[in-house]
């Protein structure tokens, strides 16, 4: 990956973060913390990894992305909007009555959303079902991606899905786990420890790759390993900072599911605008 490509991705990620702030501020609710920790991934997926077509969101041959940690919809919506699936001006209508931007992803209202999610643990099962279906249909060039939270994998159903994915050798399935270390009630290691996730997934039969979830070049390498992996699913364990990119939200458990007020909104947007200007100047 060239320096310029990396800068372009950083710009895309910065815009996703702005979308997260616009959305949650407009909604006066929502989940900025986990949306920001995964913002770099959202930017990478929708600008470099996924074969999708914003002009034809239901293109049958597209790759699928399932946001199993559905509460981080603001991040997904930001990525979709800046990729051209719908107008960025709509982002502040998040969670508003009669808006198509539902609090959690709805595949029937939001262009580009491949599965309705929100109830933790279910999206990854749906993704595994999609991967199995693609194989049966002889379309396993279609890759299926699912993003989970490290709190989410406390749900037993995730492990049912992991068994299924390994049992059926779903090498067209990439499970990404956002290890930001925090969940609503506190640090994941205190609430219900899910570590060591990599070892567990390895034991379940996955190819596992641990990366810095804010490094595009590491993402590039990890997805390359996914593409070349055969006969088993891939898990990318992505170490991240919850709230990444907005100084006062970083590593603060309180920003899991709280919207910025007007003043906090201005602070966050000022930081992100400065970052964007810096990146654009570096281009």
């Amino acid at each position, binding site marked *: 990956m060239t320096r310029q490509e990396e800068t372009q991705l950083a710009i895309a990620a910065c815009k996703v973060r702005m979308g997260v702030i616009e959305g949650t501020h407009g909604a006066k609710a929502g989940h900025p913390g986990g949306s920001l920790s995964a913002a770099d991934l959202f930017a990478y997926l929708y600008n470099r990894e996924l074969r999708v077509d914003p002009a034809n969101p239901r293109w*049958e041959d597209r790759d699928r992305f399932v946001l199993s940690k559905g509460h981080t919809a603001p991040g997904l919506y930001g990525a979709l909007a800046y990729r051209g699936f719908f107008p960025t001006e709509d982002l502040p209508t998040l969670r508003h009555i009669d808006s198509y931007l539902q609090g959690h992803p709805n595949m029937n209202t939001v262009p580009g959303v491949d*599965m309705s999610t929100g109830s933790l643990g*279910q999206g990854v*099962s*749906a993704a595994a079902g999609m991967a199995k*279906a693609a194989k049966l249909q002889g379309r396993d060039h279609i890759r299926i991606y699912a993003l989970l939270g490290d709190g989410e994998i406390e749900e037993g*159903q995730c492990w049912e899905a992991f*068994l299924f994915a390994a049992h059926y050798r779903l090498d067209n399935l990439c499970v990404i786990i956002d290890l930001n270390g925090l969940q609503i009630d506190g640090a994941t290691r205190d609430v219900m420890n899910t570590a060591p996730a990599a070892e567990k997934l390895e034991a379940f039969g996955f190819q596992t790759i641990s990366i810095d979830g804010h490094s595009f070049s590491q993402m590039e390498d990890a997805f390359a390993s996914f593409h070349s992996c055969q006969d088993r699913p891939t898990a990318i364990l992505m170490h991240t900072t919850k709230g990444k990119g907005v100084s006062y939200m970083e590593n603060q458990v309180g920003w899991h599911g709280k919207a910025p007020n007007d003043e906090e909104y201005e602070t966050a947007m000022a930081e992100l605008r400065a970052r964007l200007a810096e990146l654009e100047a570096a281009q």
Partner: protein
Amino acid sequence: MSDMQRKPVATRDSYGAALAELGREHPDVVVLDADLSAATKTSVFKKAFPERHFNCGIAEGNMIAAAAGMAAMGLTPFASSFAMFAAGRAFEQIRNSVGYPRLNVKIGATHGGISVGEDGASHQCCEDFALMRSIPGMTVLCPADDVEARAAVRAAYEHQGPVYLRFGRLAVPVFHDEASFRFQIGRGEQLTDGMDAAILATGLMVAEALQAAEALAAEGIHVRVINLCTIKPLDEELVVKAAEECGRVVTCEEHSVIGGLGEAVAALLAERRPTPMRRVGVKDVFGHSGPARALLEQFGLTASGIAEVVREFLREA
């Protein structure tokens, strides 16, 4: 109509046979099971189409959501387990991953009701109609015999959207005539004429209601038996008409009297045609182990139980 000479058939067997037939005609049909293929009879499909039958192991929640993912890719999955573990254990997966996104998943739930028998209360699901009815857009079917069950599976395939089908473990009489039978989701079926009372039954209670009608006719009581295979959406016009013309309504189901056919009918009639009613069903209690027929007898879910309720109803009103 009546062909009682045919050997009784459990509707779970009808399910397995119908799946295999559908599988031959439609390559998009896939079947998921949770380690109960021999009991749910999806093993019949598995034998014919092993590459389209996916055992999910003992993990019903994952099975349902995986089926949702398959439907999102254009397949038509039938996901199967016992009613208790499909409608019960996986309720929330059905609600959120199938019902809410309106995905084209068919849930084939076998071993409904107390006629599961010896396994006892843990496996006797008398709550599935209540659970499934409460999900917006869910179609709920409970076929009465082999002919209807096979037709219902076909109709479920042709219907675009989620369908819950309840089948039984116990072999039950086959009273429909294969050649003339026509099935339509949402349509009830009037089986006998009569104006003294209407008996609205579903599942294995339909054959019982027919027998009750015969016994009552011998006493000069003429009841109208209606088969409501489709619990949701209810055939409202047929039910209201029966209430209007008969003046008394008795519902019969192998399900709790809470939340099932009886309450669906009661709610409809309360709004459109208030009518005295009696509900034959499981009376807010758990079942227990025993031979299926003995249990049905004990819980009053038989022809004689229904006939007794009708006689008393006529004496009171």
